[in-house]
Every structure is written in structure tokens, then in C-alpha cells.
């Protein structure tokens, strides 16, 4: 049951880069200037620099800047192929859904087994880039993501859902915006949090409940 939700403040960032924003979420630091564009997908933060180190046991699934999977290289290759008229939106969507299905399974298998399970779902972001203007398709995407939240049966656990950025339609396509959001099943009094503020929230999480 959602108890608190609202927008996040991304004004400190020049660009809404996925890796940069998740690195900031994990470490509480804005490292935008230190993450080069060309090599950003290989960029990884060490565990001790992240809030993950506060937990005795944890699992991360496909988290950018930490455990992002290699398969996304193929996704980016298809994206490029689409813009070069060498692949279709359907080709791209099929791969994104395949990655998502695997992540969904891994995430749901991990919940309840660790002190913290962190899953990253790129479905809305990736499908949205080529299809955010297609309402029906995006409704299916968001229903799927809502469905994952619905699968979480542990009423005692704290659930925190955070987006790295927002998205707006540009014709059929989707463009990143600075309108990120968060939602949680506890009263945490975040107000209008910066994405770096969640680090301290995670540090104090045992006191939150």
C-alpha cells in the first residue's frame, strides 16, 4: 500500500543519463563529471561506496553502475540499427521484453531471501524511447511494472520504487525529462528529494519502519 510518493529533483544534473543517476542513487554523490559518456556503460561503483554495504545480505539485479548486464550492449546495437533503418521497432521491443522477463524472474525469486533486494527494470525507459507516444503499448508496459509491485507479498518489508528520470512523448518517441518520481509503502517524509538523498534514507532504513 503506497503511503508516500512524489517527484524527485534532478536539477543538479546536466543530462538525465541512466548510469550517472543510478550511481548517484547508490552512492549519494553526483559523479556526473567523472563518468565519461563513451565508457559509461562499463562504469561500476565499488560496494563499499554504496548503501548496499549497510546490509548484511543483498541481491542486485541488473543495476546500472553496479551489476548492469552485458546483454544491454545488444539492446543498444539494435537501437542503433533501428536508426540506420536496419532493424525494426519490433526487433528492439522483443529483446527488451526478453531482458525484462529474465530480470522479473530473478527479482521475484530473490525477494524475501536477502536483507535488501534491488531490481532495475528498464522496460519503460527502453520501450519508451521508441514508442512513448503509442499509448496502448505504454499502457501494457506500465501494467506489467505495476504487476511486479503487486507480486510483492511481504507486507512487513519496506518497498521503495524510484525512477531515475521521467519521460515525455515526442511524436511516437520518448525523450528523458527531469521529472523523476518515487513511491514507498512507509511514511518517510522525503518531501522533494534529490536522487542523492536516498543514500541516507537507505542508511537509516531500519529506523524507518
Amino acid at each position, binding site marked *: 500500500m503506497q503511503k508516500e510518493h512524489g517527484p524527485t529533483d534532478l536539477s543538479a544534473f546536466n543530462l538525465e543519463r*541512466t548510469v550517472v543517476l543510478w550511481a548517484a542513487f547508490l552512492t549519494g554523490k553526483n559523479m556526473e563529471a567523472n563518468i565519461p559518456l563513451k565508457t559509461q556503460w562499463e562504469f561500476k561503483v565499488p560496494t563499499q561506496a554504496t548503501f548496499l554495504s549497510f546490509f548484511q545480505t543483498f541481491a542486485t539485479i541488473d543495476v546500472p553502475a553496479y551489476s548492469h548486464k552485458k546483454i544491454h550492449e545488444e539492446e543498444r546495437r539494435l537501437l542503433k540499427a533501428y536508426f540506420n533503418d536496419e532493424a525494426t521497432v519490433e526487433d528492439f521491443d522483443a529483446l527488451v521484453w526478453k531482458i525484462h522477463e529474465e530480470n522479473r524472474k530473478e527479482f521475484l525469486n530473490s525477494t524475501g531471501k536477502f536483507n535488501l533486494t534491488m531490481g532495475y527494470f528498464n522496460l519503460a525507459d527502453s520501450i519508451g524511447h521508441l514508442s512513448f*507516444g503509442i499509448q496502448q503499448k505504454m499502457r501494457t508496459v506500465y501494467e506489467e511494472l505495476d504487476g511486479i509491485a503487486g507480486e510483492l507479498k511481504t507486507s512487513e518489508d519496506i518497498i521503495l520504487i524510484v525512477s531515475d528520470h521521467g519521460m515525455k512523448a515526442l511524436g511516437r518517441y520518448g525523450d528523458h525529462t527531469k521529472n523523476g518520481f518515487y513511491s514507498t509503502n512507509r511514511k518517510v517524509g522525503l518531501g522533494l528529494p534529490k536522487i542523492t538523498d536516498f543514500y541516507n534514507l537507505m542508511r537509516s532504513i531500519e529506523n524507518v519502519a
Partner: protein
Amino acid sequence: MAEIEAVAHHLHELERRTIVIIREAKAQFKNMACLWSTGKDSTTAVWLCKKAFFGKIPFPVIHIDTGCKFPEIYEFRDKIARDWGFNLVIAENEEALKQGMSPEKGRLDCCTLLKTKALRNLLDKENYDALVLAIRRDEHGIRAKERYFSPRDQEFRWNYADQPAELWDLYVKPSEDFSHMRVHPILHWTELDVWEYVRLEKLPINPLYFAKDGKRYRSLGCMPCTVPIPSKAKTIDEIVEELKTSQIPERAGRSQDKEKAYMMQKLRSLGYM
């Protein structure tokens, strides 16, 4: 003088090849039709269909009406259909139009329902087995992969990686599993070729192509999704001269292409490509 002769000879060669393709299609397919947007390319193709059959087009000419085209398009369409005496068939998705489909509800959905679905409904009804389309290879990256005879499956899909070979001008009809053939008789023409041919043949042309208040339409689509380009070309001669030096892509005025180019640039800046 030699240059004018060379252009005329070049256009003659283009015309000859196009007429062969149109006649070949007519010989292979029992129930073909020609799509006509009233733009310069499809008007040229309709004219060539007329020439190929000695003045009388032996199949229908289809205009897809989205209900939001420029008034000049409807005026031009009706006049040419009358003057050239062909069988004009209007394809429209009445149901979607009644439900108020428009670009504000999503450009892609709008195009899919008002163009693709309208054509599909007509094809289902009339069972056309081949459609003549006036696309050109130089128009857009994806069109460079097209063939003169391009099969479409039951879902209207085009598998560009699996197309029949077109060797020695032999255009092969696939034996099964296709809904209809797309025939592209002016695939080998360029935009400049089309305008030079329009000038040579003195073809009627939609007035939207000529500059008014410093702007003209270079490619015609629906009113909400087409914008004019800056231009001073008020005659066909001036358009030909303009094209020889222009750096602006032909479809720059089409919304979808601009969005795609913008999105590619934005994703690059975010490091996706």
C-alpha cells in the same frame, strides 16, 4: 545545348525503364492498382502508366483520403482525374474518421489508422494483387533497400532481408505466402529527375510546390504533419536550380522524420549509441 540533350536522353532512359516495369507488372498481375497522393512523384508515375498503355490506364488509381489534406490536393486530384480520364478510387477509414482520429491522438496511430488501415480495408474488399507506388531510392535511407517488385505478406510487412533477386531485369512473382506485390516503377529516379521530367513533359503540378511568402512545400502530406521549407522557387525552372544546390533533405518538412532525427541525436547525447 549538349547539356539539354544529355538531360533529355537521361530522362528518356528513365522513362523507358519505368514503362517496362509498369507493363511487366500488368502482364504478371490480374488485379493491380496505382496509388496516387497527387504529389509530384505519384503524378509522374500515373502519367507514365498512362503513357505505358497509350493514353488509357487499364487499372484503378487509388487516393488515400485522411480527411486532413490540403484543399489544393483535393482540387488538383479531382481536376487531373477528370482531365486524364482514369478510374479514381478513394480509400478512407470512415470508422476512424467518425471517431475523430487526428494527429493530436498520436501521429503514428493516426497514420496507421487513416492511411495503412484505409488501404488495407480497400485491399481486402477489392483483392488487388499488385499496387504501383511512386517511391524513390534517394528519398529515404530505408527506401534505398527497396526493389522494383517488393512482396508484402499478410500483415503488410516487408522483409527487406529476404527479397527476390532482380537480375537481368527479370521481376519474379513469389509463388506463395504474400498478400500483394508493391511495384516501384520510379525507384531509380532522383528528386531532380522527377522535376526535370515534369518540365520536359509539361506535367500539371500541385501549386503547393511553388514558393509563396518565401516558403514552399517540397513533399506533400497531411496538413497537420507537413511544414513548408524556406524557398524562393516560384517556377519549375527555379525548383530545378534550387535542387541542384540544396542541402536540405527532401522530407525535412515531414514531422515523423524530424522527430526520428532528433531522437537519434538525443540518444547519442545520452550515450545510448
